[in-house]
């Protein structure tokens, strides 16, 4: 490593996603499928990055904006340009289809503070986002030993899901790194008393069966009809415009 790289690459916090990784679990979805939720490595993240090349073209429900931001965050992750970043994927246990992604990182100033980056779902109507967002909180509070997580939303759907449904507190003097806007806060108290007991599922499904893990590691792909699901237009037709 050159001296320059040494300066540019952040030094991990004492507790970090590398030495305290999220333990994979699975969650039963409405359609009877099982969604494996797991932390992925930098090598695997390289396979996830191309999945976003078409997503950023979707000018609907903030997929373009959030997709572009996530794409940047994933590139930053594989190239070591964010402090203690992690990426969790939700994948169908027997196909590997990626149903959604959540990511975040840890504060350099205060290791008790977690920063939530983004939540994106590729299949609608399955409550994938609701499950994955809570898994992300679980990672921060139960694995990474944070006491609070700073959260913002770009989309109206996100705001309703997180700020309202999870009863997040206003923390408007904290400038969130995503957009520099006033932040909301998930506290340990809210986590222990409400979010964890009421909204966190799949915790009893650990460790996950080896064959599930094998399948989801070998198959990292988007659901076939993702473009149609989000835009209402079949993929080929949608991409003709680009």
């Amino acid at each position, binding site marked *: 490593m050159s001296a320059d790289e040494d300066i540019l690459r952040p030094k991990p916090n004492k507790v970090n996603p590398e030495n305290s990784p999220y333990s994979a679990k699975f*969650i*039963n*979805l*409405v*359609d*009877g499928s099982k969604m494996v939720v797991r932390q992925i490595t930098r090598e695997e993240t390289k396979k996830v990055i191309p999945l976003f090349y078409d997503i950023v073209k979707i000018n609907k429900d903030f997929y373009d904006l959030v997709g572009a931001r996530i794409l940047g965050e994933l590139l930053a992750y594989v190239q070591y340009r964010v402090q203690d970043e992690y990426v969790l994927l939700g994948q169908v246990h027997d196909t590997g289809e990626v149903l959604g992604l959540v990511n975040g990182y840890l504060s350099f100033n205060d290791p008790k503070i977690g920063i939530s980056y983004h939540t994106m779902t590729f299949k609608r*109507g*399955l*409550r994938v986002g*609701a*499950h994955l967002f*809570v898994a992300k909180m679980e990672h921060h509070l139960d694995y990474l030993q944070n006491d609070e997580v700073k959260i913002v939303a770009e989309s*109206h759907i996100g705001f309703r899901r997180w700020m309202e449904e999870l009863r997040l507190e206003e923390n408007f003097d904290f400038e969130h790194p995503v957009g520099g806007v006033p932040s909301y806060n998930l506290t340990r108290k809210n986590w222990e008393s409400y979010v964890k007991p*009421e*909204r966190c*599922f*799949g915790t*009893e499904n650990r460790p996950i069966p080896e064959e599930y893990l094998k399948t989801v590691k070998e198959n990292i792909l988007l659901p076939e009809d993702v473009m149609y699901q989000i835009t*209402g237009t079949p993929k080929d037709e949608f991409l003709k415009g680009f």
Partner: protein
Amino acid sequence: MRDVTIIGAGMGSRWGKYSGSLIEMMAEASLSAIDDAGTDEIDAVFVANMGAGRINNQTALGSALIDYLNLFPAVGASIENGPASGATAARIGYMAIASGVHDVVMITGGEKMRVAPGPVVTDFVATMAHPEAEYIHGITFPSLGALLARLYFEKYGVTSEDLARIAIKNHQNGLKNPHAHIRQKITMEGILTSREAKLNNPMIADPLHLYDMCPVSDGSASIIMCSMNKVQEFEKTPIIKFAGTGQGMDTMAVHEREDPTFLKAVKIASDQAFKMAGLTREDIDFAEIHDAFEILELAELESAGFYERGKAHLSVREGETELTGKFPVNTSGGLKARGHPVGATGVAQLCELVWQLRGEAGERQIPNDPKHGYAVNFGGFGNNVVSTILSRVKG
């Protein structure tokens, strides 16, 4: 009185969220019905819609649709009767033709509801409730469904599992309907029995969960009605006769009904339709039931006389109302899966009856050449109900 037929049916693109205007959406369904009928020589257009004046800032939709599609010199009007607007417009179309005033009438129902946030749409639908006795207290339609469901649970032993079973069936049918808003497989484990079901299928109005109720949808549907003595001109077979129509009323405030579990208006509307058609309940091969809430599928089947009171859920448990059962209900997916753009629903129910009777329902076609189909379109919370019977008469 002249006999009346349906010679065209169409639903345009898939229901759910429509990106164009309300009139464009209704035009899609109308053109599809016109193409199916093979004629655009229409005398009158009745548009069924509940709330465009409130949520889309547009009124006088009959005029707008005729203008947009250049259906001149057809005349038209909008018909508003809450969620029963669709079947009400068809009933008025029947009257117009049976009386001899018009020969060919187009009925187009449409509603574009997904422009407004959830609580605003909920409030818009709730304006149908009694203004002083219900609406101001925060009564919404899901809450009325819940109040009815609790009475059903306590009186007849209906369970959440029974309601989930109906939802699973209707989703299953919806998967086979290219027009359906919700095309999503659901399982008992996923929505009710797993631990995760609590988040997958949250309680919205106890004891009703998310999957016990229909979604909020954009959508349109259209039929072309024609007098029987003119139908030969169109060489359209089989001929689908508008065999029976009935309409019944009840008190607006649900609490004023002596027995709120009995839907008197459904009974009145059904009895009238059966009398007009000269048929009995046993003659009906399949039905489209207004399941805005899955509990209503049970209550309406009972109040319409297909099952004894408090017994429909027992037949549902036996699979009798499934696509392959002896009395398929909501082959289209019902409001639960096809969606519920309020003004369009009653017309879409008639489209489904037409397609099933013609043998054109594709993957969800029921076997054995069905001859008679029944539909109930439920307005208000059951204070204004329209029932329709369609029959295949030739071909």
